[in-house]
């Protein structure tokens, strides 16, 4: 174990004292970047492409942060992808159909995410349905709702002034023209920092770990387990709402049929980042690294014009290997 007292950096604190391991977990990421840079130096390591990679990580990254909380409680949330879409749709309903002002629309859309998360949480705690099934049910339900609400047509935000700037504008680029990082990327990092603080510095985070470690012991410590679970799912749902806004802004529309399957990418990012599916262990920093491993891999293979069938084969292999090498490092400190 790393001793926190000997290396109390902000990094170590944010990542819950496992900074060393996490820094090592960068390994797979660095390795991938080096390989692609060597193989395609002129295309991969360009500013445009790097920003493209950052941009392409945002949505999965934010969904993965939401999933990290759930997975640390030893739960699972299959609805994150569809929930994101549902929030995008609701943002459209509020801002376009009802014409509410953008800030209010944003808050309400995130609120819808939190509400849906809350419903999953209630199904899990009050109906005692296992998370896998509760969120599988929610996935179908929300997908149907998104299609019903939109009558299977996208909602376009063209008339909502500045909505596409949420994801695509670049406040940073306006200040420092050499760094045209899109706002969506900053939002992802902001969500990550807030997520890490909540996970490691608040009661919610503490109970997240505790529930994943031994739920019965937590109950017998006099903690209202049900309430905290609902709170955690609600919080995670709210984060999915942010992902919904990001994707809606990026596509400048709410696409009601998109989103299914994204949950697997999110969960893969979480696990590659060192969070245990059996609960009790995990960091946000790891999750972000995991999300980048996924997006760098896919971008690199595309840049190299690898046929998509081979992309699948290689992605499958590399996901397994990334988790394997991460294991190796953990066991040899």
């Amino acid at each position, binding site marked *: 174990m790393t001793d926190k007292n000997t290396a109390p950096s902000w990094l170590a604190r944010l990542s819950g004292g496992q900074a060393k391991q996490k820094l090592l977990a960068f390994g797979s990421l660095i390795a991938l970047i080096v390989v692609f840079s060597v193989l395609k130096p002129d295309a991969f390591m360009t500013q*445009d492409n790097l920003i493209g990679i950052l941009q392409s990580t945002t949505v999965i990254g934010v969904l993965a942060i939401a999933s990290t909380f759930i997975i640390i409680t030893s739960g699972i949330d299959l609805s994150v992808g569809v929930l994101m879409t549902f929030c995008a749709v609701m943002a459209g309903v509020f801002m376009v159909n009802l014409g509410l002002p953008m800030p209010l629309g944003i808050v309400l859309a995130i609120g819808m995410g939190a509400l849906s998360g809350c419903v999953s949480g209630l199904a899990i705690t009050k109906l005692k349905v296992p998370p896998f099934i509760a969120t599988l049910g929610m996935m179908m339900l929300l997908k149907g709702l998104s299609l019903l609400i939109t009558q299977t*047509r*996208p909602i376009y935000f063209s008339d909502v002034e500045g909505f596409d700037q949420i994801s695509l504008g670049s406040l940073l680029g306006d200040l420092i023209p050499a760094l045209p990082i899109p706002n969506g990327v900053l939002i992802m990092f902001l969500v990550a920092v807030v997520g890490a603080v909540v996970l490691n510095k608040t009661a919610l985070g503490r109970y997240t770990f505790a529930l994943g470690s031994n739920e019965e012991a937590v109950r017998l410590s006099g903690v209202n387990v049900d309430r905290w679970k609902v709170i955690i799912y609600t919080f995670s749902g709210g984060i999915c709402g942010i992902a919904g806004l990001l994707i809606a802004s990026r*596509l400048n529309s709410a696409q*009601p049929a*998109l989103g299914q399957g994204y949950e697997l990418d999110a969960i893969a990012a979480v696990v590659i980042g060192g969070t245990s599916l059996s609960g009790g262990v995990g960091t946000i920093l790891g999750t972000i690294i995991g999300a980048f491993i996924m997006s760098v891999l896919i971008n690199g293979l595309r840049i190299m014009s690898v046929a998509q069938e081979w992309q699948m084969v290689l992605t499958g292999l590399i996901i397994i290997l990334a988790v394997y090498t991460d294991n190796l490092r953990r066991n040899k400190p």
Partner: protein
Amino acid sequence: QEVYIPLVSKGFQHQFWQAVKQGADQAAKEYKVKVTFEGPETEQQVDKQIDMLSAAMAKKPAAIGFAALDSKAAIPLLKKAQAAKIPVIAFDSGVDSDIPVTTATTNNVAAAALAADKMAEKIGGEGEVAVIAHDQTSRTGVDRRDGFLNQIKAKYPKIKVVDVQYGGDQLKSAEIAKALLQAHPKLKGIFGTNEPGAIGAGKGIKEAKKSGIVIIGFDSGKAQKDMINDGTIAGAITQNPVGIGYKTVEAAVKTLKGEKLPKIIDTGFYYYDKSNMNDPKVAAVLYD
């Protein structure tokens, strides 16, 4: 009793299928028949489509409209329909069998070949282009991809297709477009074989702030029309999905009345761009 005609389609979430449904509903209203419309979630789920067909037949319909994901796989059920004297109208893509009374369809290979011609025209007959197709296995995906590739190969030796990638949804298509631009700096054009593919390509180009890339799209939808208007997409091929839906139901009704029908009802396709979008003939087949 009301005449009931279920349409078993290849999908229902895409704008294209919704437009087909719209045409079917329109015809249903005019001919006073009851129509239902359903299709599997992805165009790979051949067996789910067959389950849908089987449930549709249990409802003892007067006729069936069917857009086969894999025409051979459905033959045992179609034979059953034949035995039960339920006429089958194929739509969108054909069924390799003589059971369907008629087929209301677009010639996707020819439509994609037209896209290739337009692409060649816009880029001046030479250079690198790429394809963002919608998936590897669906009939329309394969026909449009191959229709485009074969036309280029046959007629434009100086054009090189450097990559074919498969998008699926808008977001993934946009990521692919950006990666294509990185990998092939000299890229001159992208053909998106369906609506998300075309819009995604446009998005990707916009995000990468590249200009001068020629995008040829397929189908319509509001976003694609907007992009054609603002010049991001040079133009697109449109089928006549509303017409496909309408003709399918109409054909069913006519068959029930005992009318003779041609083996193929070609619902046609058009190339459209900024210049002819408001032409009534074109505007009629575009959807939002």
